[in-house]
């Protein structure tokens, strides 16, 4: 992402340089370049780039371009004292005349126009849709005053593999005290709460915020008021702020909601205000509640390891994000270098990220670099195709062009005409592409996981339009320059003498045609293989065995409100009664309660580090250690798994029984390679946890979703030996699990209507939803791959077929002097095969590189598979050979005299 504005700026400067002629033009470009770097150095590279690119469309730039041309022309006239037909003719009028001419000649050949337009539309559409996505996820800031000054502060610890973590309260106090960097700061923490009181209870996305939260963001209240200092005082009544969409959905936009009481986790809260969604943070939040003093300060005052708080801040005007990030990083490093700090925290630092792109996460940059590279290749492919079509067209029009040249049109002006044609096509194609890209993306987004709320908000705005305009200009340059330059070098006399279009043309058997075929093949192979890899990777993920029978399982989670279930006995009674009622339902075979659902479907992802034989386990695993899963004895029966060694956890392993545990095969392998571990004792690094005897070993089953590592060490302990209010349920049904949802729901609502049932769905569906993110990418890559295939095959076919048809005269002569038609075909096919071979060789290198990039960027992507590679390669080669063979056969089959007479 970081080199992106630099490249764009360079392209803009290059274009401006060519647009603005003469020494004065150079001066202007120098000045603009200077000013761009000035602005960029102040840390606003993107803004500087937009500013610079704006000059391409500013009327003043174009007025200057024409004024400069007028000036250059008049200087030339003064020098040579003869009228000049060179260069672009005087004035804007002539330019439009040329453009009109270009438009007319485009329309005169609708078939050619449609083909070129379609090609460019696909390329520009793909590029602008990815730009739209990037705009929504990375560039658009909150709709508040000076939203670009809002940032998020994260802790990082590269040594421990912690990226973009929250901050602790003491860290917050020290970091936010930097008044030279931050104008205001605050923090928040997200939590789901059960909302009840009026209507059906439901789980809401809630955020508890520290003081001056909305003041830091600059978010106004659309109705009522924001949170104020006294709302954070534990002695004042509890208050809550709603989001506009939630107010709309649950309260039908009733202004009387202010002052009403809602119960959050059973605690009554007074609604004091409503906040517009566009200016609210974090996106998707439904309810904001104030953090009360007691909730934050006492227990966290000195604990730096409790990084529960997400810090936001408003930068002082003029402070760049990069600069603030360096300062804050240095400050954090200084804090953690102090004496008495846990040595594992030594590498801890902090960084500052623009608020609007902070939610997209650490990997977003890499993801967009990959997507950006893919669309750039498609754009390149599309431009190459359009360029090839324009070249063919200028071949066909060689006679017309040479006539115009003979009549006194300057070569530059001829080039301008062709370039203008390309510009007309590119801008029409750009408009079409923008529409295509926009609607394509909207439909692709329906596949996106609902958790990525920001994705739903891709829309056309000034930035996206500007991006599409930039892409279109780039496409015009890429596709139009080559044909324009070639046209200006038309060998006049030869063409007029030889008879125009049939005179061999510029594409006939030239190096240019060969390099176009090779280039297109290489690009297409790279793209298609990457798309193939992504698609195959997801297919394999979907097909992978979870280690148990996931069909027929229904999963959901509940959280008992603390206010009503403060007593452990009450919690235990609820879960006991709930399981009993579930098992009694018709169609239910078994039901069980656990802390964490398999397949990453929900629940608490707890982790612990263990000590075994004096060694730390897992030694270098994920930071949170081995997965810690609390289960009931019927877990094993419900999932349908048996221990591979020892026994399963059973009814007698109750709270008062000796502490026991089961481990999975992965964990067992870490503990000991050869000796049996059943009967051995394992304990967590927390000295207060009791040592546990390992009673059995379970087969590895898939605990995580697809985006996380699959084979993780795990320890299973009896749920009865630790009590929690948040638990997940698995219900094994006889048939379709979705069919039992209503009965399960009503059974639990009967038990306690205040407990909300969340994420209730068939386990398979939960798994599929988890795949949604990757699936979304796969659809994108699949679409790109299809575009690339269509573009490449049609482009290669067009260029090869055209050049073969150009050789009909040559074939006729050779047949007339005795050559065998079949040997001519073979020769032609051999030549194409060599080109295809070179293209494939270059493409393989590209595909290999792209494959490596993808492997790093996405989990679940396969390494380069021979079958994918061979399949795509042969398809492309077939297109080349078919494009050679059909016209060659036609050319060889025609009677030689017919061709020769036609001249």
């Amino acid at each position, binding site marked *: 992402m970081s080199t992106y504005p630099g490249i764009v700026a360079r392209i803009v400067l290059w274009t401006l340089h060519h647009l603005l002629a003469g020494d*004065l033009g150079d001066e202007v470009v120098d*000045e603009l370049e200077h000013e761009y770097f000035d602005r960029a150095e102040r840390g606003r590279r993107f803004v500087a780039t937009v500013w610079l690119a704006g000059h391409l469309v500013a009327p003043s730039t174009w007025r200057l371009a024409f*004024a400069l041309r007028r000036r250059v022309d008049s200087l030339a006239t003064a020098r040579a004292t003869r009228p000049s037909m060179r260069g672009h003719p005087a004035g804007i009028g002539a330019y439009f005349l040329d453009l009109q001419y270009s438009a007319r000649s485009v329309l005169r050949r609708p078939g050619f126009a449609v083909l070129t337009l379609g090609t460019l539309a696909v390329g520009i559409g793909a590029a602008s849709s990815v730009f739209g996505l990037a705009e929504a996820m990375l560039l658009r800031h909150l709709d508040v005053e000076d939203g670009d000054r809002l940032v998020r502060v994260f802790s990082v610890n590269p040594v421990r593999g912690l990226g973009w973590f929250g901050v602790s309260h003491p860290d917050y106090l020290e970091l936010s005290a930097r008044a030279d960097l931050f104008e205001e700061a605050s923090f928040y923490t997200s939590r789901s709460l059960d909302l009840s009181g009026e209507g059906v209870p439901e789980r809401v996305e809630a955020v508890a915020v520290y003081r001056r939260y909305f003041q830091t963001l600059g978010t106004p209240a659309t109705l009522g008021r924001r949170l104020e200092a006294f709302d954070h005082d534990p002695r004042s009544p509890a208050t809550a702020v709603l989001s506009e969409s939630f107010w709309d959905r649950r309260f039908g936009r009733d202004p009387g909601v202010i002052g009403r009481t809602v119960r959050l986790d059973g605690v009554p809260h007074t609604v004091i205000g409503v906040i517009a969604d566009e200016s609210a943070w974090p996106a998707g939040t439904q309810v904001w509640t104030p953090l009360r003093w007691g909730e934050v300060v006492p227990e966290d005052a000195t604990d730096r390891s409790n990084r529960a708080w997400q810090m936001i801040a408003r930068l002082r005007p003029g402070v760049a994000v990069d600069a603030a990030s360096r300062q804050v990083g240095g400050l954090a490093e200084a804090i953690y270098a102090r004496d008495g700090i846990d040595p594992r925290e030594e590498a801890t630092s902090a960084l500052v990220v623009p608020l609007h792109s902070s939610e997209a996460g650490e990997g977003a940059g890499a993801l967009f670099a990959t997507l950006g590279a893919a669309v750039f290749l498609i754009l390149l492919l599309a431009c190459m195709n359009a360029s090839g079509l324009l070249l063919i067209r200028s071949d066909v029009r060689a006679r017309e062009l040479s006539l115009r040249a003979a009549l006194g049109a300057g070569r530059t002006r001829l080039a301008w005409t062709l370039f203008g044609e390309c510009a007309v096509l590119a801008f029409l194609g750009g408009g079409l592409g923008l529409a295509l890209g926009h609607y394509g993306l909207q439909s692709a987004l329906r596949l996106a996981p609902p958790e990525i709320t920001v994705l739903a908000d891709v829309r056309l705005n000034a930035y996206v339009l500007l991006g599409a305009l930039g892409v279109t200009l780039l496409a015009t340059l890429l596709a139009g320059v080559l044909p324009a330059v070639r046209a200006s070098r038309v060998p006049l006399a030869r063409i007029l003498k030889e008879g125009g279009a049939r005179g061999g043309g510029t594409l006939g058997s030239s190096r240019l045609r060969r390099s176009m075929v090779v280039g297109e093949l290489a690009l297409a192979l790279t793209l298609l293989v990457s798309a193939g890899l992504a698609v195959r990777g997801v297919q394999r993920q979907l097909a992978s065995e979870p280690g148990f029978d996931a069909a027929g399982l229904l999963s959901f989670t509940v959280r008992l409100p603390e206010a009503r279930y403060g007593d452990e006995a009450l919690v235990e009674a609820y879960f006991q009664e709930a399981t009993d009622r579930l098992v009694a339902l018709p169609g239910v075979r078994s039901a069980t309660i656990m802390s964490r659902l398999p397949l990453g479907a929900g629940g608490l992802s707890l982790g612990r580090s263990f000590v075994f034989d004096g060694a730390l386990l897992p030694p270098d695993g994920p930071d949170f250690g081995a997965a810690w899963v609390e289960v009931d004895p019927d877990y094993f029966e419900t999932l349908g798994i048996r221990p591979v060694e020892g026994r399963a956890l059973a009814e007698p392993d109750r709270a008062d029984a000796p502490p026991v545990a089961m481990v999975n095969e992965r964990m067992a392998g870490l503990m000991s390679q050869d000796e049996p571990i059943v009967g051995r004792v394992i304990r967590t690094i927390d000295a207060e946890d009791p040592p546990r005897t390992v009673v059995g070993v379970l087969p590895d089953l898939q605990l995580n979703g697809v985006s996380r590592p699959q084979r993780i060490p795990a320890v299973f302990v009896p749920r009865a030996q630790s009590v929690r209010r948040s638990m997940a349920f698995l219900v094994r049904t006889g048939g379709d699990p979705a069919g039992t949802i209503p009965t399960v729901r009503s059974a639990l609502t009967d038990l306690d209507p205040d407990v909300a049932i969340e994420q209730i769905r068939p386990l398979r569906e939960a798994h599929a939803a988890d795949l949604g993110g990757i699936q979304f990418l796969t659809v994108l890559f699949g679409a790109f791959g299809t575009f690339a295939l269509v573009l490449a095959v049609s482009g290669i076919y067009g260029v090869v077929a055209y050049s073969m048809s150009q050789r009909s005269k040559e074939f006729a002569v050779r047949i007339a002097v005795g050559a065998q038609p079949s040997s001519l075909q073979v020769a032609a096919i051999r030549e194409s095969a060599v080109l295809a071979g070179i293209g494939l060789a270059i493409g393989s290198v590209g595909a290999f590189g792209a494959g490596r990039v993808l492997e790093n960027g996405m989990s679940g992507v396969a390494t380069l598979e021979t079958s994918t590679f061979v399949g795509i390669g042969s398809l492309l080669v077939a297109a080349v050979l078919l494009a050679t063979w059909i016209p060659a056969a036609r050319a060889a089959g025609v009677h030689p005299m017919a061709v020769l007479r036609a001249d």
Partner: protein
Amino acid sequence: MISDIVKYGGTMSLGDLQQLTMLAVARLGDEAYGPAIRDELREVAGRKVTVPTVYVTLIRLEERGLVESNTAPAAGNRGGRPRRVFRLVPAGWKALDHARASLTRMWEGVVRP
């Protein structure tokens, strides 16, 4: 070309930005090159204009025969590239005088309510 002469002939009055630009050229003397003129317009006249706009104005003025330009040798600035320095010609001074005179005449008798 003929239409240009009619259009831009000396009888036509100066635009507001043209006047300010010419004054900036006059104030800057030997230093009257593009970026300096832009800065002068911003700092003294309070007019924020883009670099291309300044140059368009200068070229128009040159076309009307009100200013002329010469390439000044490279100085120590901006990588030491040669630059074009603008200068008022007598017709330019005349046009400025004319503009000021008409403005002064118009102000006579104006009473603020």
